[in-house]
């Protein structure tokens, strides 16, 4: 049991810190959820990629540094401590790329990953549908076989980043006669500007178009954009979901930086003692999340899979994030009501946490049934 870093790890961390110090914009970029801000964030990805800092844990051949999980965590700590911008490519990098590494072809990786790493192509996810919230097995959007590929039809929703992104990935029902609803789904990538795609941006609570509805009308997808075998989409999607993804959805570095920002805000307000416990809990929670993630990463590097423990991770960060930002807004008093501030933007963002990527109710069911072994069936 050891928290110390090797000299090589320390050198990696120092390198990241030095690069960030000289490159992070001194004034915040415009909001990622605006057209102007999206473009600015895309340019920032290119700047990161130029010095191989955009996807540090990827293999060097696709633009990464083969950094491994621990160095990725160190990079994230430095990244957030430096106050660097949000990551416009996160959907592709943390959801699609791991799937391509596990289930894609060499050709797909060579074609998709480099432009993802530079931000030249920004990916949106297209999982949810209007009638399938947490119940992904009930997906109804379809992929129909056609010459040389597939025709997509139906509707996707809550597609984050889709308002301004280039391409999307998701599951489509390719065999409506499959004996079970989980079967007969195919994992596909498609172009958001292809004929037949209509993107309707959806504004989140603060009016920003953080996601979109996608209407798909005979959208052609060539066979080369199917990931894995047709009909195996569910298995492919799930096999990645339980691995690093659970760890990489929110990095501890993000919350370590947020907690220090909160402490700074509290001190700037004169350190009101009645709010001290909430600030302390934010500091403690960030440390707990960091160490919990180090432990999970160490287990993962030992060859263990993460599995249902990722439900603990998901509930923790999502509820932590809201509590931290509630504390910040309360500390700001009447000023906390202002929109378009950094605090309020992060607050609104945090509110989606307990809903998305499997609601926290479902995560608690998973913990009870799979980690604690309680009987299934009744809810």
């Amino acid at each position, binding site marked *: 049991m050891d928290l110390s870093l090797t000299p090589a790890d320390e050198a990696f961390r120092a390198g990241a810190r030095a690069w960030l110090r000289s490159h992070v914009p001194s004034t915040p970029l415009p909001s990622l959820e605006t057209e102007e801000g999206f473009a600015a964030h895309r340019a920032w990805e290119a700047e990161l990629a130029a010095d191989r800092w955009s996807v540090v844990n990827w293999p060097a051949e696709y633009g990464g540094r083969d950094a491994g999980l621990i160095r990725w965590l160190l990079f994230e700590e430095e990244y957030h401590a430096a106050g660097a911008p949000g990551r416009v490519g996160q959907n592709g990098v943390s959801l699609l790329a791991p799937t391509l590494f596990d289930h894609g072809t060499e050709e797909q990786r060579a074609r998709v990953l480099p432009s993802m790493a530079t931000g030249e192509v920004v990916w949106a996810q297209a999982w949810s549908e209007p009638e399938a*919230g947490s119940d992904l097995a009930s997906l109804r959007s379809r992929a129909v076989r056609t010459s040389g590929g597939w025709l997509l039809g139906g509707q996707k929703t809550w597609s984050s980043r889709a308002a301004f992104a280039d391409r999307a990935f998701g599951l489509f029902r390719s065999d409506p006669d499959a004996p079970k609803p989980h079967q007969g789904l195919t994992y596909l990538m498609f172009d958001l500007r292809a004929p037949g795609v209509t993107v309707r941006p959806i504004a989140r609570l603060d009016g920003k178009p953080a996601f979109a509805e996608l209407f798909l009308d005979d959208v052609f997808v060539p066979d080369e954009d199917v990931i894995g075998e047709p009909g195996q989409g569910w298995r492919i999607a799930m096999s990645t979901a339980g691995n690093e993804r659970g760890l990489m959805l929110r990095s501890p570095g993000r919350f370590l930086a947020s907690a220090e920002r909160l402490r700074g805000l509290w001190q700037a307000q004169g350190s009101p003692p009645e709010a001290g416990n909430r600030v302390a809990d934010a500091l403690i929670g960030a440390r707990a999340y960091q160490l919990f993630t180090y432990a999970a990463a160490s287990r993962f590097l030992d060859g263990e899979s993460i599995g249902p423990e990722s439900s603990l991770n998901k509930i923790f960060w999502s509820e932590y994030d809201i509590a931290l930002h509630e504390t910040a*807004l309360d500390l700001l008093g*009447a000023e906390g009501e202002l929109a378009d501030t950094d605090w309020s933007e992060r607050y609104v963002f945090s509110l989606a946490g307990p809903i998305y990527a499997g609601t926290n109710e479902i995560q608690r069911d998973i913990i009870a049934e799979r980690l604690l072994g309680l009987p299934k069936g009744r809810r």
Partner: protein
Amino acid sequence: MRFLLDAEQRAFADSLNALLTAADTPSVVRDWSRGERKSGRALWSRIAEAGVFALAVPEECEGLGPRPVELTVAFIELGRHAVPGPLVETTTAAALLAELPDPGPAKRFLPSLATGETMATLTCTPPPAGHGKPTAPYALDADAATIRLTVSESAAAAELRLAPPPGRPLPSLDPGRRLFGVPSGGEVLAVGPQVGVAVGRAVLRARLATAAQALGVGLALLDRSVAYVRQRKQFGVPIGSFQAVKHQLADAELGLEFARPLVHGAALTMDPADVAAAKVTACEAAHATARTALQLHGAIGYTAEYDLSLWLTKARALRTAWGTPDECRTVVLSGGRRW
């Protein structure tokens, strides 16, 4: 001792509820947040006709008040329908003007406030209680209001001014609210220690009205969530049949139903500790209900286009308006033993 709304008070609530239901307030809020004031002004007039603003004005100034209980009854309904505009501020400004030692400003402004012809907004910096943060540093909807009052206080006395038109709005997390920095300068309406006393009483009313409004917001969020989970299905059954969903809504009901008597009780006593207790409890209950409502609605609840958002964002904004939770708890602690 009969701690129940009487038939007349219940009828008043019912008639306001009917009026506001018929007015399709969600579309009014959406107009208002785009800066289109017409539908909002029309609704404002009807609310004034129902006597809401006159409740804060003493009978000797041709009002119907002060009737704090009826004021809470009205503000619960205004919150329940997410009515936009400087409601708390207009009511509070009317009460403040009526209490000034010099009757001049009251004569000048009250008639048009009571009839709904004009709207008022009001800021206080720093607050009467002398906390570090101003209680009300922003002028709500100052572009729509024709009467913009600013109170500035020193240790010795308070000064009330009629402020000039405001600058650019600052966006609020609640799109139904537009905030403005405090306009400086303007005509002095009153000054002196007695003004400070009047301001102290007025802030108490602002806090109480905000508590009632928050309670109404919470009640609407609960009603909408109950309706939603009864029809929304997942895994083949209404999600309202899941025990985890039921218990979240039971907790929301619990919070709101214990805030309600505090709101009405504070109206009867107008004791600062009672008012602060009502404010923090109603706002916490509304805020907790908002969290539950969002969670149970899922992604649809997170969108601006779905009407739930009008109440969700208001619950957050009211939480810190006219006194944060910590400020209110401090008032409770400094109150003497009287319960």
